[in-house]
């Protein structure tokens, strides 16, 4: 009887009250390429951290070649035979390549020969990491991991920033490792890669292992269905709203490019419309929202607000033009120790001309907002004591108090209970009914038909799919978000 190369049993991990992993069973046999799949927040990255020794699990066992191991620090994982290539390369930016290798006590020649095989033989080892592009760092990190000669190679989203020719090199290495009788644990959002490369796939949902399948037998559907789980029972019929095609365009972009993350995005958003954006993590949606909210200027193309280009030096300029952002990190957007009322009034302070009459104006405006939001608390309390959902309402409400024409929401319902979610949907719809535009990115695909009028799917910095939100099923969106529509 042969032991599995890697076996985890009932691995669990919580951060305070947040459960990241409930119970993960994963078995990787020698000589196989094993995919680890799951929707955003399913627990993949927590599992990677555990398997690379960054964090210790609360409970459960991990064994390598039949022997139980504990890994409290990254070097201990390497010693156990597990080498990880992280999504963000673990290279020290202010040191040179050579110094980084010295740091980890790795032979330069071994790395050099690996890099040569990947077509990077001319890389100057005296170059500083800071000066190198991300795809080179990924491959460098991979070459360094290979130099450890690991039993199991963990590749976390390694192909996400790689041009296809370099991705081919990586696939070649995965095959080589398999033929050596060793294994690869491959984490990716690209289902096409899983279908063509992987022997086995373990699927996580809500911190639990829900299935292990053979991708070549199961096909795409067999991978997607367990990732989604049972269709949410409380799904109700989407109320269709009619958007007049004559309504003015509040926000548009023309062929927007930025740093390889946004690669030519154009869309139009009309008054009264709620436009959804669906994408897997890291497809350029973060950058798109930075561009729209004035946090960053595009390399090429334009953001057009109410018919004229936005040339923002900071979000302040965008806000003045009526484009406001509800960011993903609520705490970041709030003054956690100040009262609800003060938080609602922050943008009002920007209006210098209002300073004289501030007291009265501030009060009536914030009162109106609080009423509209039905924040379930007395408004003089500290914002940090509110629940996540109520905090989110405050972030939205502060713009209600201030007035705006376009509301950008980045994952507004992340980590919020279903009841408050409903309230936020209603709030956003109400906002749209008054003639404002709403652009929503959400990591939860079932929200799209409930909330949006139209949906765009972004993959690799491009819009790959567009349709009416009311008829957008999760399966269609997920396939598009995995780039399957494009490759097929």
């Amino acid at each position, binding site marked *: 009887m042969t032991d599995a190369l890697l076996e985890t049993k009932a691995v669990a991990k919580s951060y305070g009250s947040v459960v990241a992993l409930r119970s993960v069973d994963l078995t990787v046999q020698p000589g196989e390429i094993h995919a680890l799949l799951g929707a955003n927040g399913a627990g993949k990255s927590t599992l990677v951290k555990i398997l690379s020794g960054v964090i210790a699990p609360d409970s459960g066992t991990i064994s390598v070649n039949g022997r139980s191991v504990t890994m409290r620090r990254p070097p201990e994982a390497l010693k156990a035979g597990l080498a990880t290539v992280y999504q963000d390369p673990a290279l020290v930016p*202010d*040191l040179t390549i050579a110094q980084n290798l*010295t740091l980890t006590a790795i032979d330069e020649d071994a790395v050099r020969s690996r890099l040569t095989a990947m077509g990077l033989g001319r890389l100057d080892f005296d170059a500083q990491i800071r000066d190198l592009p991300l795809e080179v760092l990924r491959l460098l990190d991979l070459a360094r991991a290979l130099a450890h000669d690991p039993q199991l190679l963990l590749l976390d989203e390694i192909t996400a920033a790689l041009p296809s020719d370099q991705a081919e090199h990586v696939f070649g290495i995965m095959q080589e490792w398999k033929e050596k009788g060793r294994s690869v644990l491959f984490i990716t959002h690209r289902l096409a890669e899983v279908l063509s490369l992987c022997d086995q796939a373990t699927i996580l949902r809500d911190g639990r292992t829900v299935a292990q399948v053979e991708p070549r037998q199961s096909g795409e559907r067999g991978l997607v269905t367990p990732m989604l789980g049972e269709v949410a029972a409380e799904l109700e019929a989407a109320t269709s709203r009619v958007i007049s095609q004559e309504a003015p365009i509040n926000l548009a972009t023309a062929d927007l490019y930025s740093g390889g993350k946004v690669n030519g995005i154009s869309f139009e958003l009309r008054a009264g419309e709620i436009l959804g954006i669906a994408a897997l993590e890291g497809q350029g949606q973060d950058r798109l929202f930075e561009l729209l909210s004035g946090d960053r200027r595009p390399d090429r193309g334009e953001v057009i607000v109410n018919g004229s280009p936005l040339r923002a030096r900071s979000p302040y300029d965008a806000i003045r033009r009526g484009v406001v952002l509800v960011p993903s990190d609520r705490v970041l957007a709030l003054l956690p120790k100040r009262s609800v009322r003060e938080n609602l009034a922050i943008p009002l302070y920007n209006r210098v001309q209002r300073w004289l009459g501030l007291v009265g104006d501030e009060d009536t405006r914030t009162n109106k907002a609080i009423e509209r939001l039905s924040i379930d608390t007395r408004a003089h309390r500290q914002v940090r004591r509110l629940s996540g959902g109520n905090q989110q309402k405050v972030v939205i409400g502060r713009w209600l108090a201030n007035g705006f024409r376009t509301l950008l929401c980045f994952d507004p319902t992340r980590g919020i209970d279903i009841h408050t979610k409903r309230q936020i949907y209603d709030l956003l719809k109400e906002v749209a009914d008054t003639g404002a535009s709403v652009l929503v990115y959400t990591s939860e695909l079932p929200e799209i038909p409930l909330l949006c009028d139209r949906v765009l799917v972004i993959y690799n910095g491009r819009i790959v799919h567009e349709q009416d939100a009311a008829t957008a099923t999760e399966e269609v969106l997920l396939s598009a978000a995995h780039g399957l529509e494009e490759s097929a």
Partner: protein
Amino acid sequence: MTAVVRRRALNLRRHGWSIGVWLLLAILIGWYVLLIPRFGSFQIASIIKNSLPLVYLAIGQAVIVITGGIDLGAGAMLVLTNSTSATLMQDQPFLVTILIGFGIILGAAALNGFVGWIINVSRVPDIVVTLATSFIYSGLALMILPGPGGGTSAGFRILFTGSDDGTGTSFGFSLGMLLVPVVIAAFFMRRSRTGLSLYATGSDLNAAYLSGVDIRRAKVIGYAFGGAMAGLAGLATVAITGSGDPRFSIGANATLNSVAAIVLGGVALTGGIGSVVGAVAAAIIVFFLSPILSAMGIDPNTAQVVQGSLIVVVMMIAGLLALRRRRAK
């Protein structure tokens, strides 16, 4: 061929700041030579030996800041070791004072390493913990030596200053005491794996941790090294002045000067960037400004304004250069 040229350009860019600071120092010295009527070995000896305490302090501060910390207790450690050594070394023969000196350096390293450990386990920010230790060190100094006093052996004074009364024209010993620690520190930081791990820790904590660096150990080593250098600065002060002085203000000034020196010397307060060599040149400049300004006949009070302005202007130049580089990318 082109690779060599490219590498030269790369090196010039990377060490450009250090080179610039050394050039600035050379210009200041040249100016000083023109300003004063007589420039000879007495002046050279005076500049070298009197800059020693700040140079040592700046080396230690540079190492700590490169590791991602900051030591507001460095000057107080100077005062503490100065007071302790002056008390212990009084009326002792040369050999004993040397042994005491080594003991002081080791003790300072252990004490400051302990501070690094406290920062690790308490997770209180470096600036808060070392602000507290600066008061503790100052208080201890006053307990050991309540007022100026104490002394050391003649041989010990010669070791740092070249003469037994702290004056004179021979500067060989001072130069040696300047160069040896600089070379050791520079090699330690740039060539050893431990030194690289300090850079790594200050540059990117997460990447360093994932690369297998023991980041807690790096912090303790950084602070211990800084403590040892502050101890050496205390010993140099004993040798130069021939006595100990526990006053709080000496330490506070010395700390601020050490921070000014490393910032001027190209060490980023965010960690991971800069070099010991640059910090040393800047430390000499910071020390050297007051003799220059007094040679120009400028009131000592104005001298501080000039010193502060210089730092601001130099940092603005640094900021502009960094901005241009980012734009060019």
